[in-house]
């Protein structure tokens, strides 16, 4: 009986969780003019698997030392301007297209995150699977089309007249799953 109680309590407490599958380290390399113009895209760079016991929201944003700026590791040149985090674009896909973000969307700082699911304030109401913005309890194991997301990453530097300062840059993408009370 003690064991049953403990298990029951544990399930109740573990409300919403998710897992990041595949490599969390993504390396973009731009070695040619074509790379700059056409950009580099990693399809299915990550997979987010969600298990929710209550309504939920999903947000994403960049974590850097300076808001909206990549962390510069190495400089290759003295000219040009350092890139903004918005140069990195994300796209969330699943078979039911439940993400509220359509197509590739520029990344923003975690202080003003992108809202993948929900309205950012917990007032989205109940949206069952497979609706756009599905946010009700469920699991990727039984409904992968609503609770699992493939995340594509893309960077298209282009050839801005100001030039981009060559170098190695880093940032962290934070995916935030929140329970809606």
């Amino acid at each position, binding site marked *: 009986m003690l064991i049953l*109680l403990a298990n029951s*309590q544990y399930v109740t407490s573990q409300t919403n969780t998710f897992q990041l599958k595949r490599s969390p380290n993504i390396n*973009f390399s731009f070695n040619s003019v074509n790379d700059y113009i056409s950009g580099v895209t990693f399809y299915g760079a990550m997979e987010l698997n969600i298990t929710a016991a209550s309504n939920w929201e999903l947000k994403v944003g960049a974590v850097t030392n300076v808001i909206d700026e990549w962390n510069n590791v190495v400089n290759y*040149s003295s000219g040009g301007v350092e890139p903004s985090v918005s140069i990195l674009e994300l796209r969330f896909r699943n078979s039911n297209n439940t993400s509220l973000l359509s197509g590739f969307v520029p990344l923003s700082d975690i202080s003003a995150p992108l809202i993948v699911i929900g309205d950012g304030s917990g007032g989205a109401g109940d949206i069952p699977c497979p609706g756009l913005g599905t946010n009700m309890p469920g699991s990727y194991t039984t409904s992968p089309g609503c609770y699992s997301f493939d995340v594509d990453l893309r960077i298209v530097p282009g050839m801005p007249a100001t030039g981009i*300062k*060559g170098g190695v840059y*880093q*940032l962290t993408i*934070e995916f935030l799953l929140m*329970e809606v009370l």
Partner: protein
Amino acid sequence: MVFVNCDFKFTFVRTQIQTFKFKIMVKVFKGLMLALALMMYTGAIQAQTLLSDEEYAYVTMDLRGILDLTMTTDPQVSFTFATIQEYMNGITKFNATKLEVDATVAWDLFAYASTDNWTQVQAYSTTGTNVLPAEILEIQSSVENTTAATDDFDSFVSLKGLANSGVALGVPTADTQFLSGMKGLASAAGDAEAPGTAYGNPSTHQFRLHHRLKPGVPAEFGNSTVALGGVGEFAMAGYYYLEIVYSLVEDL
């Protein structure tokens, strides 16, 4: 009686055991309640702390500065002077060299001869000098250098030899002839051409270079900024070559 006594003793013992069991049950019950309370408390804490979950991905971006200089024409430009008219009027090779620049950073483009003089491969006569300065070759660019560069190719001008160009170990100076840009950082007192592709910026990133040699008679190359030697010196008939260096660099 003995039996009764025995039964009494047994009953007494059983009663003691039951009492002992009851005490144990009370302790177990207390333990259960304590454990339950602890689990509920722990669960409450977990329920509060697991309101959100985070995952992190780490992205690295390696932005290499790209400078691509492409010569779309035959790199060998040949001049043959076989008539007096050709000596007198010279020979001009329009669009002899076409250059295209693709760059992701601000850039400068300059040109110079890799030697001070032409290299004689074969002599056709014994008179005249075989020391022909690089400057006898004149070059004009189709693209005007809009910077304040001291030397450019906006009109037919003598191509500077290595020493006169001031280029040392590939690094230009204010004396270097610039097709585009100039010595000095654009962010300081200098200037440079903006990043871009040749395809997208044909008026600034595509160069057509006209080459001209005008020996004259005698072959003194009067347009050259460097004389052939002494007064009345003329070029020895022969076969010569000169190597021209076109250098694309990030804004210097």
